[in-house]
Structures are given as structure tokens and as C-alpha cells.
């Protein structure tokens, strides 16, 4: 438990430092992300939630067989909404794999269905 928390904290800090140069270099220009959010207090909260969600998703990915670099690169390419859709649900969400055995049953199941194809 303690270790997980530490892990999470580490992830948050790593991501936070990664974001740092962008923010300080752009003090005067209002950024694109900000332009998309309504109030700045809300924007702060959204940013924090996003940070935590991302860190959690990265560690979940790691526990599912990805190494740290791959996991963070994947999460970096996701939007906040997409990350949010993953948090805590990676095991339950559909993961497209292959059309194997069940397809055979399906074919039988659908023979009558072929009668009207459209």
C-alpha cells in the first residue's frame, strides 16, 4: 500500500516536471488547453485530476506487462477524457484480440439470419 502510494507520487512528480518547462516558458501567452476550459480555478482542478489519472493509468499499464517508457508514451498520447475512461477499468474494458472459436458458434447461430441480409 505504502509502496503503491510512493510509486504514484513519483509518477505525478515526473509528469509534473515534464510539464514544467512548457508552463514557465509560456507565462504571458495563454495556452491552448486553457483556452478550452471555462474558469481558471476549474482549470487547475482539471489539471490536477488529469495528472493523477495519468499517473494511475501509467502504473496500471506497468502492472499489465508494459515497461515504464512504453506506458508513459502511450498515456501521453491520450486526451484527458480517454485517460479518464481507463482509470480503474483497464481490466473490464473491451480489448480487441482475434475472432477465434466463438465465430464458429456465431455462424451457426446466424444461419437463419442470413435469410434477410439487409
Amino acid at each position, binding site marked *: 500500500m505504502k509502496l503503491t502510494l510512493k510509486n504514484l507520487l513519483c509518477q505525478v512528480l515526473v509528469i509534473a516536471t515534464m510539464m514544467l518547462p512548457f508552463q514557465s516558458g*509560456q*507565462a*504571458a*501567452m*495563454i*495556452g*491552448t*488547453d*486553457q*483556452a*478550452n*476550459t*471555462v*474558469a*481558471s480555478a476549474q*482549470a487547475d482542478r482539471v489539471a490536477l485530476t488529469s495528472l493523477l489519472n495519468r499517473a494511475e493509468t501509467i502504473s496500471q*499499464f506497468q*502492472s*499489465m*506487462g*508494459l515497461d515504464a517508457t*512504453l506506458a508513459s*508514451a*502511450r498515456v*501521453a*498520447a*491520450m*486526451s484527458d*477524457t*480517454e*485517460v479518464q*475512461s*481507463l482509470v480503474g477499468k*483497464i*481490466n473490464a*474494458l*473491451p*480489448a*480487441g*484480440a*482475434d*475472432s*477465434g472459436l*466463438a*465465430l464458429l*458458434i*456465431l455462424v451457426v*447461430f*446466424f444461419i437463419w*439470419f*442470413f435469410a*434477410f*441480409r*439487409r
Partner: protein
Amino acid sequence: MTSRAAPAAVRNRTKSPYQMLKMHKGARLFTGAFILAITLGGCASLVPQTMALRDAWPAGVPPRIELADVPFFPQTEFQCGPAALATTLAHAGLSLTPEQLVEQVYLPARQGSLQADMLAAPRRYGVVSYPIAGRIDDLLREVAAGNPVLVLQDNGVALFSNWHYAVVAGFDYPAGELLLRSGETRRHAVPFTVFEYTWKKSAYWAMVTLPPDRIPATATESAYLSAVVAMARVGDAKAVATAYTTLLKRWPDNITASIALANTHYERGELPDAEALLRKAAARHPDSALVLNNLAQTLSDQGRNTEALKLVEHALRADSPFAAAVRETRETILSRLASGK
């Protein structure tokens, strides 16, 4: 015949075999009609969109089309995610193989690929991934516009899920078939009904991947903007600028895209380009504190502080959530003016 010959006493006590047969037949007929009604009614609700297509074929979509130039990568075990994604990305102009995508989308513990990863991976190549609305009309319109559509299907039955990614590369409505690049089959013809049944279980999930200079046929302004903003997180600067330019060509009023494009110019030190874009945006949105602030900053950086001050004061008058940032800009400009440049 036997029933008529039966004694009256017997007939009164119990029902004759003939009567029983008649009743049984009625019950059978009733049950049969009931099952048929349920099945037919059930069918319509099983594949509601296919049923709706019978009455209303989407306008402007040809009855049959096949995108023969969509490549095919036969999948290896569990790798339909990378294979399907390589198919649409190769069609978008990238040269890559499914193997290169494995580490970007495949999740070993799940022996499959998640939708979020399928959407995320193309962005790393500067390609915009756009989740289309879950309507067969939209799917057909994308294919008709030449965009292969990546779909998530559940080929399982009842409780046994069997998630699978495939690419719709054409359809033949008179024959009642959709043409898929799927698994190990290059041209997998699937009846509309079967396709919808398997597609419905993913809540009709589908996406297209397009180069930044093309907008999906069914794109809406806000959804496409989100898709481009998401791509801008990891895509290379040139692709991002192209995508915003493409968006602004179609929807010139989009304030976020104007600011974002101006910001990409600003970051690269192309101040006059940033200024031109922001001026155009300011003409359309004269009271946007956001636009005025960024324009003021851009002007001040070019040494035009007096002009910048006027704009930033205007921005301060507008009630906006960016008041703190605007005040900061004003202070910068004032101190630059005081120090005489």
C-alpha cells in the same frame, strides 16, 4: 373418425382425442405465431440501424463501393489491433507494419488492444484519429468518401465476448454485404445484419485515421477540434500546424484553433505570422480577452508596446476567467514601456 365413434358418456366426461388434437394444434399455432412475432420483433430491435436503412438510405452515398487501395495486413495471434490500425494508417500515407504498432497498442495482460490506445497511437505519427458517431449512415458516408473505417466488433455469442478490430473497406448494399479487412481474410463479406449485431455490442464504436490536411466526411467542428487538440499533445509541430490550418479553412470562426495555431507560430518565433492570425481572430471576436491578451503579448515582443497596452487594457475591461494572466501581461508591457523598450 375414432372420436366420432366414441360413446357419448365418454365424450362428456373427457375431451375426445380429435378435440384434444384441435386444441393442441391451436396452441401450437399460437405458440408458433408468438415465437415468430418475438423473433421478427426481436430482429428489428437486434439490428435497428439495418432496419432503418431499408427505409432511408443516406443521401449521396452510392449503393456499392469498394476501396481496393486499402492495404491488408493479415493478423498474427491476438494482433488484430495492430493489424487493423496499420491498415488505416498505411492508407493515410504512412509506411509501417503491424509489428511496429504492437508496442504502442497491444496490452500483454489483456491479450488485446484497448480503444484508447487505438485512438492514441496514430497521433504519434502526426495523424488525426477521429472517433466517428456510432451510426451506420456515418460509417457508410466515410467509406463513400474514401476513408476506411476501423470498427470494434464483438464476435462472441451471449455472455462470451470476443472483441475484434476490423476495417470496413467497402459495401455492396444490393448484395447486402459490407466488405471488411478482417483477421486473416483480405475481403471478408459480412451481411449488414450480422455486422450490425456484432458492431452494436461495442456501442457502435468506430474511428477513422486521416492525415492532418483532410477532415473526415462526417466530422463536426467540436469533435474534430478535440481530435486535433489531442493530436497536438504528441504530434510533430508541422502536422499540428497543418491540422489547425485545415480546421480553420473549414470553420474560420473557431477561436480555439486560431489561438492554438498562433501559439505554434509564437513558439517557433514566427511573431508576424502569429500576429496576423490573432488579428484575424480579433476581428471576429473583438471582445475576447484571450485573443487580445495574446495579440498584445505578440506585439509587445515585437517592440510595439504602446499598441499592445491599448489592447491589453481593452482585454482587462472584458470579464473573463483569464483576468490574472491579462493583468500580468499588462504589467510586463508597462515595465517594458518604462524601461524604454
